[in-house]
């Protein structure tokens, strides 16, 4: 049996504690960074889905408009006021709008699936999105303020600062390796033919 009690370690343990605390802070910043990333990502999915709904609506209206244009064009051709080429060009336009409509519908499905994936629901779930898009109240932009905010608040910047402090602590630790350490050490040794527990039983 041995016992050890450090008496003097030249600050090594103190720095070990400090390093561990800094490591804890780094982990917290890492989690904050991940949380911000998740929030930004899911907010983008949410707004993309809302935007997708609007785009599908707009393209549907454009489709109706193009169809009406085609009807009018065909009527004009029938009355001799337009040529086949005019009608054809409207048809091409209609096809383009239709393509856009398909594209927007597909985009909406993708956006919706991304949002559902983020919240753990079946990809084709349809939700009624209740938060309306609204402009943020932005104050007068001041570049210096934004810079300060970025330096002070961004997780990566804070992690970089913490990493610098950790490096300084490690450097100090390396320097102190030259210094002696004092530890009180006590030991007890007993030899016998049986393990202690058996010896105790046998008496």
């Amino acid at each position, binding site marked *: 049996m041995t*016992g050890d009690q450090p008496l003097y370690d030249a600050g090594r343990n103190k720095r070990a504690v400090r390093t561990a605390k800094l490591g804890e802070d780094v982990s917290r910043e890492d989690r904050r960074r991940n949380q911000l990333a998740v929030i930004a990502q899911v907010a983008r999915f949410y707004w993309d889905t809302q935007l997708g709904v609007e785009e599908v609506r707009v393209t549907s209206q454009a489709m109706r408009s193009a169809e009406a244009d085609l009807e009018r064009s065909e009527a004009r051709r029938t009355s001799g006021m337009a040529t086949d080429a005019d009608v054809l060009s409207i048809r091409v336009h209609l096809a383009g709008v239709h393509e856009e409509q398909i594209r927007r519908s597909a985009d909406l499905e993708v956006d919706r699936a991304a949002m559902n994936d983020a919240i753990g629901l079946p990809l084709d779930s349809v939700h009624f999105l209740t938060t309306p898009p609204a402009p943020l109240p932005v104050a007068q932009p001041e570049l210096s303020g934004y810079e300060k905010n970025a330096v002070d608040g961004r997780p990566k910047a804070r992690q970089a600062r913490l990493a610098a402090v950790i490096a300084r602590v490690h450097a100090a630790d390396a320097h102190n390796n030259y210094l002696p350490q004092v530890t009180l050490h006590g*030991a007890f040794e*007993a030899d016998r033919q049986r393990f202690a527990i058996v010896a105790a039983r046998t008496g």
Partner: protein
Amino acid sequence: MKPSTFIQGIERHVSVPSNPNRALWEQGDFTEIAVFMRQSGEAVVQGIGIEPPVRVLDLGCGDGTTAIPLARLGAEVVGIDIARNLVEAGNRLAAEAGLTRLKSQEGDACSLAGVADSSFDLVISFFGAMFAPKPFDVAKEMVRVTKHGGRIVMGNWIPNDPTFVSQVLKISSAFTPPPPEGVISPMTWGVESNIIERFDHAGVPKENISMARDTYYFASPEKIPTELVEELEQVYGPTMTQSKRPRKMERRRNYTNGFWNCRTRRTKVRMPVRLYPPLSCASLFPSNEPMKTLTLIFVLAISARGQDAISLKEVVRQSMARSRVIEASSAAIDAASARVTEAKSGWLPKVTYSESWTRSDNPVFVFSSVLTQRQFSESNFDVGDLNRPDFLNNSVAGDRRPAAL
């Protein structure tokens, strides 16, 4: 039975409207027309199929054509109407019928400020909200106050339908100045694509909207259709207004002719150019028999929130709760906290205990072990035993290694 706290809460907070339609509907006495609509109102409510307990909002409730039958079926009903006189009439009729779970009050379908989100299981509006000037706002408000999984049911007149009310409104509009910019005709509520667009804009997808044509009866065993038309001119706000408007003699005559033709079943009406197209409304009245069937309605059944409503805040909350990346980050923090504790323990004394066991017949091992065990005796000096000792067990408690500095 006392009015519920729910109804009282709505009553306290709903805003009083400043809608220009208010004056239109407050003039005359629509209750005289509503008398003809009671029978169909009850039939409509029966067709909706409600199962109490259920909270219902009746938008454009009038004097309770549908609200009263709903309350009779056990629903907790809040009626909202733009016209004060109709609200008063509705409350009076409810009181006379002993219906304490029905309360009507003034309000604007375009802005139901004061009515909380997701308050009602069912929102109905039969020929009410369709007259509000901002249909997109109406749809949005209806959806907003409907609970998740609730329903919205509307009855709207169909434009250009060859039946009674559509034609009355058509003739009225012929003598109406163009509406102010931004005001949309109420009859557009009778067009399917408009309904889909408006509710889609409010967040209800097309798949959740169903529509059907049905017949709405203006029933009166005493009156003949011509008498109803006369009554419309006298007590129905929109037609009263139009009958006063044509100041010039010619326009007045056109207006009168329009109704006169309706009343006397002339098959065609020569319309003032661009005021209204040829009508066949007179064919509605094959004879002067008491009225039975007159008008078609457009009934909508909208599962307003068959899909779950979800806010951005809720989406963020759910995604953060199930994010593996965030979970891993939290675990990393726990590990780092444990390392801090571990590092702090460096100041504390360490006590270690170990025990080893060795068995051997190596002469040196046996000799030294017996000596260490303090069991050495004279017999151990026997040369034969020294060279070929028996197997010996040696158990060591403690640590022979020098402690690391």
